[in-house]
């Protein structure tokens, strides 16, 4: 299973202020642990919203709005992509991160085969047969 972990912006990140060295070091160690555990798939930081833009869709109309955007708490400042066996494992990993005074969100990533490619009757029958075979061997 894959999980996207969303880190929110704050006043400092929006102002382009880097976190202090201690936090950076601890975050570096935390990322190392994720890599060493084979959990880390990807990690990216996002520039402040002042460098960003939004496109508003209204029928055929397109409006471009330049950043910065207000409500720092609702902006994304960075994300991780993790491979974990369960949401609980992702939670346990996130608990080990050196954050303070913030909420970090975990969301499960859709796998392609969850997008409505139905479990066909053949596949279902196949799985039933295999379950029966395993049960017989017990």
């Amino acid at each position, binding site marked *: 299973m894959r999980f996207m972990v969303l880190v929110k912006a704050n006043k400092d990140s929006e102002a382009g202020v880097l976190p202090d060295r201690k936090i950076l070091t601890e975050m570096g160690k935390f990322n190392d642990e994720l*890599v060493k555990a084979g959990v880390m798939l990807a990690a990216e930081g996002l520039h402040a919203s002042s460098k960003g833009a939004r496109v508003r869709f209204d029928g055929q109309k397109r409006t471009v709005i330049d950043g910065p955007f207000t409500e720092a708490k609702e902006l994304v400042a960075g994300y991780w992509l993790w*491979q974990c066996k369960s949401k*609980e494992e992702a939670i346990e990993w996130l608990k080990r991160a050196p954050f303070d005074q913030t909420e970090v969100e975990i969301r499960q990533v859709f796998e392609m085969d969850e997008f409505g490619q139905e479990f066909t009757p053949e596949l279902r029958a196949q799985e039933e047969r295999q379950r029966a*075979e395993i049960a017989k061997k017990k």
Partner: protein
Amino acid sequence: MAVEATDTHRAIDAVWRIEAPRLIAGLARIVRDVGLAEDLAQDALVAALQQWPDQGIPNNPGAWLMAAAKHRAIDQIRRRTLLERKHEQLGYELDSAQAAPDLDAMLDDDVGDDLLRLIFTACHPVLSTDARVALTLRLLGGMTTDEIARAFLVSEPTIAQRIVRAKKTLADKHVPFEVPRGPELAARLSSVLDVIYLIFNEGYSPTAGTEWTRPTLCDEALRLGRVLAELAPEAPEVHGLIGLMEIQASRLRARIGPSGEPVRLLDQNRTTWDRVLIRRGLAAVARGERFGGVRGPFLLQAAIAACHARAATPEDTDWPRIVRLYDELAALSPSPVIALNRAVAVAMAQGAAAGLALVDALGAEPALKGYHYLPSVRGDLLQKLGRSDEARQEFERAARLTQNARERDLLAARARSCGQRNLL
């Protein structure tokens, strides 16, 4: 481990999955016995399941589990009769560890080495391949016996027995808990890589009896491979293995069609190829190639996979490069299967006639006798050359040889597509 699936228990399961390998590895270094180490670790888990639901999960669960395991080790020493030397050694190690002010730091220093020792021990060639796989998934994947059984479609007692016997063999043969050195290292590392790739293939390639992929096993293998790459970054074949697995895994969604039929690489919908995994795979191949020197089999196979991964469409594939890579692979370990795959690449690079000449030369190979891929390839090339009757016969032969029902249907359909007898 039969537990209610409450929130706390699920959280403890997750902690266990994260902490178990390091815990077992650290204990194994102290007690010098992988089986005993796992027993002690399991005892610690039992204690955690008893205490954490009330007390909450501790801030440093790894340290808590290690302390709990050591407590039980001390208890055991007091109750059991051990060899005098082992008793002293254990007592000394445990006493000195407990006297040390910063237990966690001390353990941390050795954790990487201990994990590596555990990997090499679990994959020791004195064990059968089945045993190595089960033990690796158990000790390093933190998988329960039941999970392993379901992944391999065998009964739980079968796996349980396999693991028990494996631990006994390791103890009986006095397999040392260590990372092999010198000339032994290359062969032993090769054994580890083979085990990991075997696990991956179980999940990736439908074998007779299973007809679709099992991503859980692929995920486990990827995780193990990545852990190993961090522990042994100076081994190019490790990066080769990761590269190969990441790139193959990138195609998991594309490999199986809606009715469970296998989809050939060149027919796959490349928009469903996972670009995150491709990026990681290409990076791993680059890391492996940075070492220079002669490329090993995993790195070469990964480089071939990378050629496909880089091609946005089948037409963009760098076939001549793939042919050269197969040349290198064949030089390393000549095999009829490699020769056949090379022939396919030659056909794409130089035309069907060139490929067919090579395939024809393989016709008498005993190793390829029952292999459906040979007539399947031959049929494909004959069809491209307009020799429809012969092509149809080859596809029919291939259909008879395959054990995969869906594949059989596909090949039969290809036979039919060769059209009526050519009256010209």
